[in-house]
């Protein structure tokens, strides 16, 4: 099977590690540390998440980046060689939108690769819907999808969509 590298990035608390865990289960290699800020969660990723899983005929090497801007040096390290980018964003945290836009612009300016935006936590109060996020990020509507990152089938659906986009561009 051909290896294919995918990067998952996005602001803190978007569900990047949850996404990796849904897809990889116990095999997910994570690097979490106890949180010392008020983030509404117990642990946060400090280096990366990693795992390998089959998607169709491809072996996807999934790399998850840390969310906080202070770890931005890892974004470039992990983006090297990636063929697709999934930006996750918590729909109930609109205060993270400017950061998400910055992150997307930053990564795509250095690594112009196929990308999707996944909006998580849509079941929580007053969450921004994918179409609103698409408008904010000035992305075509179909590039922004809603998902529950904790559910394997939803995570896999989004990953599969991104892999298909990546393969199409890569093979072109």
């Amino acid at each position, binding site marked *: 099977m051909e290896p294919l590298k995918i990067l998952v990035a996005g602001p803190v608390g978007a569900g990047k590690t949850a996404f990796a865990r849904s897809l990889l289960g116990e095999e997910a*290699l*994570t*690097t*979490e*540390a*106890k*949180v*010392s*800020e008020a983030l509404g969660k117990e642990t*946060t*990723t*400090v*280096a*990366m998440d990693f795992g390998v899983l089959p998607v169709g005929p491809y072996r996807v090497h999934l790399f998850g980046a*840390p969310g*906080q801007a*202070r*770890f931005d*040096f*890892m974004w470039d390290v992990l983006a090297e060689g990636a063929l697709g980018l999934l930006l996750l964003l918590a729909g109930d945290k609109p205060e993270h939108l400017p950061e998400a836009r910055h992150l997307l612009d930053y990564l795509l300016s250095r690594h112009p690769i196929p990308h999707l935006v996944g909006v998580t936590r849509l079941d929580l109060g007053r969450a921004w819907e994918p179409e609103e996020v698409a408008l904010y990020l000035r992305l075509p509507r179909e590039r922004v999808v809603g998902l529950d990152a904790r559910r394997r089938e939803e995570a896999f659906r989004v990953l599969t969509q991104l892999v298909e986009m990546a393969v199409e561009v890569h093979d072109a």
Partner: protein
Amino acid sequence: MTRQEELLALIRNLRTAVPEVSGVMVASADGLPIVHDFPEAEAPRIAAMAATSLGLGKRIATTLRLGELQETVIRGQSGYFVVYEAGEKGVLAVALPGGANLGLVHFEAREAARRLRELL
């Protein structure tokens, strides 16, 4: 002494014991500076990198069954950056010039990291 004073004393003691140390950083395990003597503008990045290095080092130690992580050592042509675990809440990082006596540094810094574990 307040906690802040105790932390500053810990940095001072480490510097006295190993004068060649060029910078000491005490950071939270999630990469925020707590006390340090690096230039202020560099501190946030150094704290984040120390946490990344230790987090990744722990994972490598587990994956390769190396036992509990002691420290991660980054060695460049003209210096070292060594990161020690200080409990689940903190990390201790020291910057050293190339000719440093790493054995002595480990001896003193591991002791400081043990003390730090109690303070954080």
